[in-house]
């Protein structure tokens, strides 16, 4: 009796299970839900492994350390959705800090320095946008070039040395708090919310997805493809400058090469967050969770006394696993 009734069951069960799995994983929000689940798991694991992890001061530490990276990743997300890429963003951050420090050293007002840095960030965005949309260079090559140019200029301007920047009002940008929350974190969250609204609600956001999905068809359908990409490069340059200012304020110094090492973390966060490098697909919330995951991973492993070399290895493994899973998801979907 048990034989005859149990035989059809196993063949049935995996089928329906696979089907419900497919439809569940096929939802557009599934990627973000998976990411969030992974993050909660990570939080739980670290709280279990280290008594220092789940404290308010440590959590706000994670936030502050990731905020300037998050700023650049936030603006990088719509750029990559729109079919672009900006490798120069971290170099712009370094340059922004250097500009603020040098202008201050020459007796100029610190806020004038900040404004100048933001304007130069925009200008680099215009340059990148011009090279990509007008000269039609591949964005990877174009921004690899400008990255090298601007990190080089930062080095030339400072002779490779950090410049101290101790001005309490300025340093507040990096270490100040509003209602207990670090200012850099507030700024980052604000940027994420604004970019989410722009991407999901405005015609410009629609143009970003269309441009990244199929530029040729978009252009034939009246989408201002080049203008859209230009705006995205400017946003990216601007985010680089803002991140550089925050970082210099946090460190109390402008180090020309302080931001450059974080470029790969920025790109990794965007990809981990489910944005396709081929364009047309992605969301800023995915990027935010990914930024938190990478920051938490770093912090948790440090608390557990894992060497920073192993942290790089772990980050790589997490990235590959996440992208692999996402590929699987997309394949299941179609």
């Amino acid at each position, binding site marked *: 009796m048990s034989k005859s009734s149990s035989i059809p069951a196993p063949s049935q069960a995996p089928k329906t299970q696979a089907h419900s799995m497919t439809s569940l994983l096929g939802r557009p929000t599934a990627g973000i839900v998976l990411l969030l689940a992974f993050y909660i798991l990570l939080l739980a694991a670290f709280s279990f492994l280290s008594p220092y992890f789940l404290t308010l001061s440590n959590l706000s530490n994670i936030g502050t350390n990731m905020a300037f990276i998050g700023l650049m990743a936030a603006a990088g997300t719509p750029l990559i959705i729109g079919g672009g890429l900006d490798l120069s963003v971290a170099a712009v951050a370094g340059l922004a800090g250097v500009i603020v420090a040098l202008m201050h050293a020459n007796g100029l007002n610190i806020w004038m320095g900040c404004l100048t840095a933001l304007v130069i960030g925009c200008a680099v965005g215009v340059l990148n946008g011009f090279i990509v949309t007008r000269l039609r260079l591949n964005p990877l090559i174009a921004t690899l070039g400008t990255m090298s140019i601007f990190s080089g200029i930062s080095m030339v301007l400072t002779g490779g040395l950090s410049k101290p920047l101790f001005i309490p009002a300025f340093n507040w940008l990096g270490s100040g708090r509003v209602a207990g929350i670090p200012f850099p974190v507030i700024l980052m969250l604000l940027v994420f919310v604004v970019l989410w609204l722009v991407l999901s*609600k*405005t*015609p410009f956001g629609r143009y970003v997805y*269309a441009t990244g*999905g199929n530029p040729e068809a978009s252009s*034939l*359908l*009246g989408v201002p493809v080049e203008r859209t990409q230009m705006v995205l490069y400017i946003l990216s340059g601007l985010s680089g400058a803002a991140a550089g200012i925050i970082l210099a304020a946090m460190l109390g110094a402008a180090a020309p090469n302080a931001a450059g090492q974080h470029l790969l973390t920025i790109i990794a966060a965007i990809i981990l967050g489910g944005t396709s490098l081929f364009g*047309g697909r992605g969301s800023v919330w995915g990027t935010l969770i990914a930024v938190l995951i990478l920051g938490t991973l770093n912090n948790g492993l440090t608390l557990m006394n894992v060497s920073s070399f192993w942290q790089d290895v772990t980050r790589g493994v997490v990235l590959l696993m996440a992208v692999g899973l996402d590929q699987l998801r997309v394949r299941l979907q179609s």
Partner: protein
Amino acid sequence: MRKGIGFVAAERKRQGLIGNLSVRTNTTLPYLGRFTQFGMVDRSREEASTQAWIKTLGVKTAGPNQEIRLLSGGNQQKICLARWLLGNPDLLILEEPTRGVDLGARREIYAEIRRLAEAGLAILIVSSDAEEVAGLADRTLVLEDGKVVAELAQAATAAEMMRAAETLSTAGNQNELEKV
């Protein structure tokens, strides 16, 4: 493009569709301004309008929010047609309107083209399918290497077209028709 002319390209995948975006997004893209209020796209109005076209043209899809790449060629082409009709164009240019479209959908597209023409829309069909042109056109121009080689009156048959083309040697003719 914005001057009241709609254009449905022959290379649907490459020039007509943004494959990974939804049916709704693909439908409303050329006239997105009409769905925008205070700088925000009104999604529910988009959905209603897309749903209406899905019904009118008999598009087989899971709904306005399905990715368009998952639709069949014929149903994709119906969306390519529908999106221009949202803007009430003065002239609609269709390039190979039924390439890669199955028979059932092809008949429905022909019926829609007929209906639109009768309603007073000027339609220019560029096609290498003589039968298609014969069945639809009010006026037919036979083109070769960008030059008009023959102009045929109303109700020209496919055979007449082929003859007009063949008297000037070489095959690979393009028939163009205009009807108002």
